[in-house]
């Protein structure tokens, strides 16, 4: 009984997301499970078919709960900040994540309807006092990426791809969001100009 079963509209999407879970990095899967725990409000049994590789040694089940708890608290603090400040994802990162992330060789196709994108984006929008205008046709993925572009804390966006900017922010220790990274390393994220390049691409 996957958490996605409640939200996805078809079983095929369900299977895709299950398959994807196998190939994600450990820590990201931890967060995915944690965030889905957050969403559904009940503790899940890890699916035996997907938990192929056990979590890293330092990550005990108690850490997992702690992480999710911390994630819930800190992501709720966004309302005190302006839009341009980065969301305080103070999730504790493991030691091996301090180094620059290495893209996996297999490029995943991007799931535009993945509910965690919606959830993440809604959290970042909590600081807004008004609803966004003229954004009916824009997909959540694009809105997340544009929000990443506009975050001043990660520096200027002109003249580099979003992935380069993400890597630069990570190298500086600014902790850019992993959701954005996941979108950018997908197949569409690497090939489509709309996703790969900043919002000023072609204009500046």
């Amino acid at each position, binding site marked *: 009984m996957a958490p996605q079963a409640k939200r996805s509209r078809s079983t095929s999407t369900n299977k895709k997301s299950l398959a994807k879970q196998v190939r994600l990095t450990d820590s990201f899967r931890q967060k995915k499970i944690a965030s889905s725990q957050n969403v559904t409000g009940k503790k899940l049994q890890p699916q035996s078919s997907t938990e192929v590789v056990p979590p890293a040694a330092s990550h005990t089940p108690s850490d997992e709960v702690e992480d999710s708890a911390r994630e819930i608290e800190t992501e709720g603090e966004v309302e005190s900040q302006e839009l*341009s400040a980065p969301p305080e994802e103070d999730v504790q990162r493991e030691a091996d994540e301090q180094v620059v992330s290495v893209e996996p060789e297999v490029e995943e196709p991007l799931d535009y309807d993945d509910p965690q994108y919606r959830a993440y984006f809604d959290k970042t929008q909590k600081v807004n006092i008004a609803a966004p205008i003229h954004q009916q046709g824009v997909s959540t993925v694009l809105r997340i990426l544009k929000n990443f572009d506009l975050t*001043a*804390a990660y*520096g*200027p966006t*002109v*003249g*580099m791809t979003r992935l*380069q900017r993400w890597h*630069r922010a990570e*190298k*500086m220790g*600014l902790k850019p969001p992993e959701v954005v990274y996941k979108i950018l390393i997908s197949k569409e994220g690497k090939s489509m100009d709309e996703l790969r390049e900043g919002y000023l691409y072609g204009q500046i």
Partner: protein
Amino acid sequence: MAPVASSSTLDPEYLLSDPKEDEAFPTFERRASSRELISKYNDEFALKNTEKTYEQQYASLYFLRLTVLKPRVSKVAAEAWNGMSILNQEVKAVDRVLDVRQGEFCWIVGTVYIEMTLKPNILDEITKEFWTTAPISKDKFADAANDAIMLEDESGRVNLVGSTIKSELLVTGCVVAVLGSETTSGDFDVVDIRFPQLAPQLPRKMSTGHERKYVALVSGLEVSGDVHESYETSMLFEYLMGELGGSDDSKHASEIIHVIVAGNSFSNRRSPVSRDEESLDNSQRKKKKYGYDSSSYNSKPTEALDILLADLSASVSVDIMPGDQDPTNYSYPQQPINAALVPRTRRFLGSSFRSVSNPCWWDIEGLRILGTGGQPIDDIFKYIEGDDRLQMMEACLRWQHCAPTAPDTLWSYPFRDCDPFILNETPHLFFAGNQPEFKTKIIVGEDGQQVRLVAVPKFSETGKIVLVDLESLASEVVTFALNGTGR
């Protein structure tokens, strides 16, 4: 006028007596030295042609500078000002420059930007096209009365006022923390200012040997290869090879284990051929292809320098660093001079000859050296009031940035991923070439760091080179002059 070897202790009687049968003459040998480039820092200066892009803007460079230096300054500022209260109000740190409130004492961190009325402005040049005022070339563009000092970060700029800020040595591009409060007119009245101060320094490895080791710093050779080439240049090279002077001089020269030629080794004087061409009229002038006449290329400076360096490389390890007039890229950091320009010396590439970038970090026998060709210091000189080059070099170390005016007035590559001029470590020796005169001093940092600052003078003008003792960091000057030439 024959050169006089003034430091020799040869006895005239000895010279005038008959040669002895079993005379033994001491031969001095140079010891091999370990001299390496610190690749951790030098790799950031290297710009491969295949990887260079100019699509990014310079804002990235300023962003990188502020992101790296802001925590360092904040730490120093917090140590100084946390818990302090002015007028019964506790001072607090404010994250963004625009968030200061009137009447509150707070401290902010940002990049300094100095709006200078006399600074050449591209917009002024465009308006001047319609008028006939001749441009006034000045040495300095600083005007204390009219310059506005501002502090900038990603949120915006705020004007800094107050007597404290006027008396500080500041240039555009250094990152500072200022304490003060906002006035009614929206300016920030500064009470106190803090810099990142000297970066941590690696301890010097003192060797146990008793022999002295020197590194020779030469700058501004301006070899022209003309008939009127200065005699001092050949004296210099003979001295470094141990062929000049008496046995004392040879012994001293044998203690030099490394020579750094820092900047402006090639003269940029035009060949006599091109001067005659100017008197010809249009029909007689040679057709220019691609905008320049290739037959007027003067290869004499390159050949002359090549011969000198090849001889020198056979005797001592040499590093050549480009200056602002050398045949490499003009923008800072300058890439190493291509060894193809000096084919005879190129044979020593990999053993005793090396072409390095400007600026460059060395590690010679455990001594960490940072050297520049002098461009950042010359650039800072243009935008501040004072003349003291050593004070500017010390300021660079205290700002933890060796070229703060890049990219504002010092041309620079628009770095996107890291600002390579940020000093993560304080060197033991910091030198700047092509300076007008020799100056040196030792500065001491808060954590006991000791740095020897050396302003290396231009050899073509002063005839001086600097020798720095690697053990004691003492510096001495060797002057080459012809008697009667008034130098």
